[in-house]
């Protein structure tokens, strides 16, 4: 779930971790009531500051994705219908933005990008 998190990125580690967990909840990898790894476990496994994990879990709690039960652990909450799908569309937007930014940086035009996308998908969208 946390493969490829990048401490060198300008996106803070806690935000990257929270995003991965949100995604896992959105796509059903983590179902309702599933428990997240303990702070100690995840900090040791990823070799990151425990405060970073705590911050990620707190943000997720604030956003309503998990519930922190002190002494017991952190659990995925029952989500309102449609919330998972909404989260996935949100993720799609993020991915497209990343792609567009990368294309701009490397001087790839929108038309070229669209052609490549069509070839990859094997369909004509226009």
């Amino acid at each position, binding site marked *: 779930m946390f493969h490829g998190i990048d*401490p*060198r*990125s*300008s996106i*803070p*580690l806690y935000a990257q971790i929270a995003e991965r967990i949100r995604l896992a909840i959105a796509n059903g990898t983590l179902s309702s009531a599933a428990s997240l790894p303990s*702070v*100690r476990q995840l*900090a*040791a*496994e*990823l*070799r*990151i*500051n*425990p*405060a*970073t994990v705590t911050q990620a879990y707190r943000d997720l709690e604030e956003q309503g994705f998990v519930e922190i039960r002190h002494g017991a652990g952190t659990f995925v909450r029952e989500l309102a219908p449609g919330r998972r799908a909404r989260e996935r569309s949100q993720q799609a937007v993020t991915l497209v933005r990343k792609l567009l930014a990368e294309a701009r940086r490397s001087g790839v035009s929108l038309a070229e990008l669209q052609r490549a996308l069509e070839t990859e998908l094997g369909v004509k969208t226009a």
Partner: protein
Amino acid sequence: MTHAIAIDRLHYRVGTAFEIRDLDLHVPAGSIYGFLGPNGSGKTTTIRLILGLLRPLSGRITVLGDAMPEQHARVLSRVGYVPEQPHLDVTLTVGELIDFQRAFYTRWDQHRAAELLAAFELDRDRLFGRLSKGQKAKLMILLALAQCGDLLVLDEPTDGLDPVVRRDILRALMAYVSERGATIFISSHLVHELERVCDWVAVMDNGRLITASPMEKFKHGIKRLVVTGAPRDIVDPPFRILAREAANGAGESWVVGDWDPAMQSYIERLGAAVREVIDLDLEDGFVELLRSFRGVSR
């Protein structure tokens, strides 16, 4: 106690070759504090001053609330220290060294020692002198953690070790911090490793502290800008210009410190344009900061 380590106006000199001047350093309790700097910048000397192994000419050092070196006996019983070079008796076995160390620390946690012995796959009966470099480093970490200090002072604990050993050591350190909430003060050349674990970072060069700030603030504040049409002289900008050179192609490449996105309009008011704002990682930021510091002080 808000600071695990507080250093104020510290002055230290040995001979005429090297001195630490006007050092102010405050390490928040509970932080993992990365201490960066090139070889010979004064990192190890600072660490030895913190531990009371050297005496400053002037200034004040407080560790875990007590004055150093005056209270070193009280302080050192709560500080785990891993020096750059292991200093243990090569003729003793791993088990003997553990028992020896244990006798000095009232808070010693034998359960943790046993756990780490197993996790690190160390053999109690092996002579210290016969251990590999990685095994020696792991034993030093074991000893520092089992004494259950509130502060760990680690001088390049993983530099020069293979990635598997580095992983094992960092894993043990992070598990320890999550359980005990201790402060870690760690110096290293392995910038990417510090970037992973530290929430504070300080940079030292030539006996002086160049910068000290929360990691996120440091990384957010340092950017590379591609700027076109900038005037030659820029007076009193709201950010620091660490480097400025002609970029290949159009415009100039700047490296700025204390940057905030809102400052883009400042550059535009000068009649210039910011073509691109590029994030730097800790290593790039560190190198640019040193480069600029040396340019100014020379």
